């Protein structure tokens, strides 16, 4: 029995950063908004306060803030020849399932992706020729420009309390910032976090090698801050529990302490938690979304929520899944290279070294999510010539820490036994002496890396799981080799007592160990409906009152973390809806 509810102006599926931003902006514009969130309502005062939040077992091992794979998961394979199997336990990535979404448990790294990404195919063709892009590499321009997005990056950075040092204000290079960033209108709202020993040592070594280190921009408030909406942040206390935890000091830019409470105070807004959307419903002619169907996961009750505008704001993977389950747009076929839904799934790659310095005390338990220094010389630096190295894209390198858990983080030199008294002696000896240097690298789209519906496995609602087909290709392997070499050269220049060197990964990708929650693509944005699912306003080419907001819209993945453009695009879409769509509902870009 399905209960049909009264129509509202807007229904939002998923209440994290993008859902929260849209909920705030559209309720303030006078629209009646209902948000449906799978997870529970949790608040800083009740759930993320001391001492309970510092619980590695609950939050790291048991994934308390994350998606429950017993209800829904994905199946995974490396290539179309393999049989895909369900991911029965979260590993490689950790989608949030709570009011605030992954914005509660992220580290806060906030980057501005630039025209280097948005015009990727044009840029590489212009510089290296058409033949520089392999046939299977399905990279394409995004249909948006950095100049269009700049004010929205600014808005997101000031909302989320990003601490950092500008590298380029209005074309003027700023000492100490990232000289390769695109011009910004003004500096970050807050100065950089206090550097830690590991980031200072990395900074010195990187400068010595002729690179351009800078403090990583992150939404960890370096001092108390009130954002333009009046949300108050405490200063970061460097407690070390950032990634995978809610912030105990209200210092991490998170939707549940910024945009969501503002929406919740607005009488136009209603939040329904434990609400699992199973389908986007369509009008009889299929040209408009008429609402969504959802199930209350606490009691199994089923509802239909009609709405004038439907916004998919779930985690990137789940947005794509909903599009496939709802039969909106043509599913992508990697053999014929036809269709768009599921196309250009991308991930990230990386390499890392651990350096041990006898006599040093790094105090790895004291840091913030963004406690590291970074170099961008091999990524946003367009002067870096890729031709001799035969790869496209790039990687950033960072020295420092990001939530090295007091129990979980146990650095020991290679060759140490993995258990027993020798291991215990080694972990006691080396714990304080270790720091890491890590690279995070882009992944270029490939025709065979994609999503579709799994033919075998179903979720708790009887629907097909989504199937992910992914592996690193030659481009990523070559870039990984280059990154490992850069890391090892830097590491050796620092003269560590012992070094676990970085090595390029060449084995197939696996979903088991944690890597990064930076999944992109599947319903990508672009300039025309033949090769993209969404236009530049993240509006569906097929149903004009359906917007799909998140990293699912990225046509490929960068070396940078995705939340900066995710937040900026949410504000950009909100403005497009408020200022243009409401006045004249229909396609915002003519196909």
């Amino acid at each position, binding site marked *: 029995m399905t209960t049909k509810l009264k129509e509202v102006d807007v229904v939002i599926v998923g209440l994290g950063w993008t859902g929260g931003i849209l909920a705030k902006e559209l309720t303030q514009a006078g629209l009646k908004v209902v948000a449906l969130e799978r997870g529970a309502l949790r608040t*800083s*005062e009740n759930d*993320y*306060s*001391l*001492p309970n939040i510092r619980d590695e077992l609950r939050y790291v091992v048991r994934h308390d803030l994350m998606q429950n794979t017993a209800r829904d998961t994905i199946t995974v394979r490396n290539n179309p020849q393999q049989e895909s199997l369900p991911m029965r336990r979260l590993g490689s990535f950790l989608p949030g399932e709570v009011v605030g979404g992954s914005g509660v448990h992220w580290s806060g790294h906030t980057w501005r992706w630039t025209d280097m990404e948005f015009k990727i195919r044009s840029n590489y063709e212009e510089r290296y020729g058409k033949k520089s892009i392999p046939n299977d590499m399905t990279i394409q321009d995004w249909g948006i420009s950095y100049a269009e997005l700049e004010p929205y990056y600014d808005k997101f950075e000031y909302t989320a309390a990003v601490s950092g040092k500008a590298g380029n204000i209005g074309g003027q290079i700023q000492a100490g910032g990232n000289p390769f960033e695109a011009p910004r209108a003004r500096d970050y709202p807050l100065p950089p976090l206090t550097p830690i020993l590991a980031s200072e040592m990395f900074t010195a070594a990187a400068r010595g090698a002729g690179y351009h280190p800078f403090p990583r921009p992150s939404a960890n408030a370096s*001092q*108390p801050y*009130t954002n333009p909406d009046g949300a*108050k*942040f*405490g*200063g970061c*206390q*460097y*407690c070390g529990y950032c990634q995978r935890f809610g912030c*105990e*000091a*209200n*210092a991490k830019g998170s939707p549940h302490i910024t945009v969501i409470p503002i929406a919740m105070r607005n009488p136009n807004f209603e939040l329904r938690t434990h609400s699992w959307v199973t389908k986007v419903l369509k009008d009889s002619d299929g040209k408009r979304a008429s609402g969504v169907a959802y199930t209350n996961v606490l009691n199994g009750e089923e509802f239909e929520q009609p709405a004038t505008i439907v916004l998919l704001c779930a985690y990137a993977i789940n947005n794509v899944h909903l599009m496939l389950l709802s039969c909106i747009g043509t599913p992508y076929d990697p053999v014929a290279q036809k269709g768009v839904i599921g196309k250009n799934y991308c991930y990230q790659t990386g390499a890392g070294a651990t350096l041990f310095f006898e006599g040093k005390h790094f105090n790895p338990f004291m840091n913030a999510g963004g406690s590291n220094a970074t170099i961008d010389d091999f990524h946003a630096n367009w002067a870096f010539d890729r031709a001799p190295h035969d790869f496209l894209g790039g990687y950033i390198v960072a020295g420092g820490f990001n939530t090295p858990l007091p129990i979980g983080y146990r650095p020991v030199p290679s060759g140490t036994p993995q258990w027993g008294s020798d291991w215990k002696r080694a972990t006691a000896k080396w714990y304080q002496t270790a720091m890491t240097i890590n690279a995070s690298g882009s992944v270029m789209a490939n025709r065979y890396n994609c999503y579709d519906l799994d033919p075998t496995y179903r979720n708790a609602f009887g629907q097909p799981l989504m199937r992910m087909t992914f592996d690193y290709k030659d481009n990523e392997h070559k870039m990984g080799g280059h990154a490992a070499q850069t890391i090892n050269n830097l590491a050796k220049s620092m003269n560590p007592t012992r070094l676990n060197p970085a090595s390029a990964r060449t084995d197939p990708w696996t979903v088991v160990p944690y890597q990064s929650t930076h999944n992109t693509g599947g319903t990508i944005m672009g300039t025309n409906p033949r090769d993209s699912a969404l236009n530049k306003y993240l509006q569906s080419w097929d149903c004009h009152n359906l917007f799909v907001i998140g990293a699912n819209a990225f046509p490929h993945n960068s070396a940078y973390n995705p939340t900066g453009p995710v937040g900026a695009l949410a504000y950009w879409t909100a403005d497009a809806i408020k200022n243009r769509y409401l006045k004249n509902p229909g396609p915002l870009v003519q196909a």
Partner: protein
Amino acid sequence: MIETKRATMVLIMTLLTVGTARADGDPVRGETRFQECAACHKLAADANEIGPSLHGVFTRKAGELADFRFSPAMKRSGIVWTPETLEKYIADPQGMVPANRMPYAGMTSANDRADLIAYLVQATK
């Protein structure tokens, strides 16, 4: 010789001001210092958030508010909040009440603390 004596006196006076409440804090500057507290503590009555409301704090014993979940350490502390005890607590929260739940490392400057307390004396009434 006189110069040395004067220097010594200045040094002693400086040392004396560290760790003790200064009576002459500036409440206007203190309001700015309160930004470090404001993300968690409200000044209105019954406005408990991530931290307890500070309304009427100088009339209370530590851990006394019925509708805030204090740590056992804070409840057991036996502290009566006065400008002096609160100043000492803000200087080093874990030092004064080990295992309390306030995630704040401490306000190191005695002048800042004096300004903050001067503000709180007015603002929590």
